[in-house]
Structure formats: structure tokens, C-alpha cells
């Protein structure tokens, strides 16, 4: 038996990230799953992601400088 066929013969274990509708559809088909709420940082807004990254980088520097004292 190929590994692929072996895979499809197994009980499916699903972790769903983000869109709850996917988890609900699987549940309706009797497939157990765990749903985790997730959304891209800043709703995917690249400008805001870059600003938040700058804050993170600055805070890492601050913590490092404080640690070095």
C-alpha cells in the first residue's frame, strides 16, 4: 500500500485555524475537529504590521539594554 493510500485510510484529525465555517462543515460530516480562532496580525495591513514590528524591535532593544545594566 502506498503511503498516500495509508494516509487516507486513517482517521482524520483536524485542527482548523481562522474561518469557523470550515470547522462547522467538517463537524456536519461527522469529522472531529478542534477550531482555533486566528486572524492575520493587523488584519493583514502591511503598513500596520511594519509599525508593530518596529515597536517590537525597539522593545527588544530596551529589554536588552536594561538587562545589560
Amino acid at each position, binding site marked *: 500500500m502506498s503511503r498516500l493510500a495509508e494516509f487516507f485510510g486513517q482517521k482524520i484529525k483536524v485542527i482548523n485555524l481562522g474561518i469557523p465555517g470550515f470547522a462547522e462543515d467538517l463537524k456536519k460530516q461527522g469529522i472531529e475537529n478542534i477550531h482555533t480562532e486566528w*486572524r492575520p*496580525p*493587523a*488584519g493583514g*495591513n502591511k*503598513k*500596520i504590521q511594519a*509599525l*508593530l514590528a*518596529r*515597536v517590537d*524591535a*525597539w*522593545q527588544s*532593544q*530596551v*529589554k536588552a*539594554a*536594561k538587562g545589560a545594566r
Partner: protein
Amino acid sequence: MLIDIQEANAKALSAIQAAQPVIKGIDTALAVVPGMNKNLILHAGPPITWEKMSGPLKGAVIGGMIYEGLAASPAEAEKMAAAGKVQFAPWHEHDGVGPMAGVATASMPVWIIENKTNGRRTFCTLNEGLGKVLRYGAFSQEVIDRLKWMEATLGPVLKAALELAPEINMKNLIAQALQMGDEVHNRNKAGTSLLIRELAPAILKTTFPQADKVRVLEFLHSNDHFFLNLSMPAAKAMLQAAEWVEGSTIVTTMARNGTEFGIRVAGLKDRWFTAPAAIVKGLLFPGFEEKDCNPDIGDSAITETCGLGGFSMAAAPAIVKFVGGTVSDAMNFTRKMYEITDGESQSFQIPNMDFRGAPTGINILKVCEKNILPQINTGIAHKDAGVGQVGAGLVNPPMKCFEDALEAYVEKYCQN
């Protein structure tokens, strides 16, 4: 700059938690509000010019000018306002708050709230009740007559009663109101009842004529929202304690003038971040449609900024009959607000969430990163001056306010 944001925010949150707002008394705005003068008209929300004001705010300005004797007619008031003969300023820049249009003039009696922890004071006018009222932009003779009665009788009677009553701690009163099904923004039934319990014996002890005392008590009894004009300056006093903690990303103000929504942040002293105010979605009174609604208006979102109102909707399941949605929605709104706040109130507990503290300390970094906006519940004003309230509902601030604040924060602090 060696600023640890977590430490700065912990300092801001700690100041909010430590605040002890008490009712200090009542006096005219001219006597107690910093920077007040006869020609100054205070309003809700961020700064705005006469030209950009919405219908209800313009109406309230006209009514305020007639009440104050600055103009003899609506036409004269409009002409003077357009010609720059009166000054306008946000309540928030004078240590106060005003519901809906939020207009206050020099002679109006105002509540004085004092934070016993730092000695600072906040102010708010007295609530006029429902129907044709100034805060919704009405300026007919009955509105002016009621304001005159509030100046001549309601204010003085309550002022005298407060001098005879034991000190009223607003944090205690709000905490009790939350246990009794209020969220102290759009449901103030319990808070108003508790206030009447505190004040009624003292009102009876004053030397005012019996008829005045009866009318004052009847006025308080007839207005479920009377407490709102106390919960707001109490919330303002708590948040004022976090102004202006260097480096903090905690929101200290959310306010609307009917045209724009504005926020201020502890670490970005005095700066407003504004964007067009949204239309409130909710339950409209019979006969009104969405096209009748004015955009979001009022300083009452100070309650949400402090973890009350929409943030504590789980404490007030009955409110969904007024603002729309279901009880599960109310619970979910509160749960979601924990994701964008840095702490939980040590004073305001939500009984049906196992007495969990209300979500407190909105952090702009969390709002931006999680893309979750603060949840506000609010009254809806008719877009035309003087019509009044047309419903109540739910609304969020524009994300742009928080994004612009983040950008300004990075410019100010991040040198990397």
C-alpha cells in the same frame, strides 16, 4: 529612549485602578471648570468648527447661546456662531465630559467629581431627562425653561443636599450598579435608584420649600439616565489619572462630536486622533429609519474607555432589549474586550462571569495587532436639530484613529 511599554502601561493601569472618584458638589461651570468663560461653549468629542458641526450639535449650541443670553433668537445665535463671536472647545480639554452634543455654558450647574487619590477634579452637566432636551439638539422654549429650572432649583437643592449627605464614592456606586444589571452607559436604572437612596434623606433635610424638594425628587425618579452624568465624569476621573504617562499605549479618551470620532492616548499627550464617526446600528423607535440617524455623538464612550458600557455588557443582559442583539452577544462583547485591554478592574465585577473584573485599559497595540475594535453601545440622535433620540444601538470607533495613534507613537518613541 529606555521605555518599557509593559511597565508604562502597568503604571497607567495602576493609576486608573487606584482612583477614588467622589461627588464633591455642584456649582456653575463658570465657577469651577478650568478656563471657562461667558463666551465659551463646551461640546462633546474632539475639536470642531461651527461649519462642520452636525445638526444636533448645532441645535444644542443655539439652545446654549439662548439659555446663556448670548443670543436672543436661533437666527442670531447661528449668525454669531458662524461669525466666530463665540468660542468652542471640547469638554475633554477642560477636564469634563458631556453626553450626546454635550453642550455646556457658563451658568449651567455641573457635578464636581474629585479623585481623592490625586486631588484632580472632573465635571459634567446634570442630566435633563428624555424627550426634547438640549443634548439632542432641541432648543425650544420648554428646553430653555427646564435648563433655567435646573439652574435655579435642581442644582441648588442637590448642592445643599450633598453638603448634608455622607460622602458618595462613585466607584462603590458603579460597582453596586453593575451587580444590579446596569453597565452605566445605556442602562442606569440601578445607579439612579442607588443615587436617590443616598440623596433623598438629605434633600428632605434642606431648607428649600417643600414644593421644590418634591419636584426635585420627582425629576430624579422620572429619569432612568440621571446617573449617566455621574458615571461619565467618574470614568473621566479614573482615566485622567493615566494622563499622560510617558510611553504608555493605553487609551485615555474616546469621544465623538457627531461628525468625527477622536481618541487620545496616555503616552501621546493632548493629541487627538480623529476619523469620521460611524452610523450606529441598533433598534430605532417606531417611525424612524436609518437615514434619520446622526453619526455617533457624545462623550459617553468615556464609560467604555474605562471598562464600563459596552465593555461590561455581560453585566447588563436586559440592555439588549434597548440596544439590540442577544444576551449571548452581550456576553461575547465583554469576552472580546479582554483581548484588547491590559487589565481587569479591581472594583467593577461582572456577576455572571464569575465576578471577573471588567476589561480595563484599552491598549492601541492590541487593537491594531488583533484588528479588534472597542465595543460601544450608545443612544442615536436624529440628524436634525431638536428631534431628539431616535433609538439606541451598537457602534465601533474607526480603526483609523488607532492606526494613526500607532504611527504617531512610533514617530515619537521608536528611534530604531
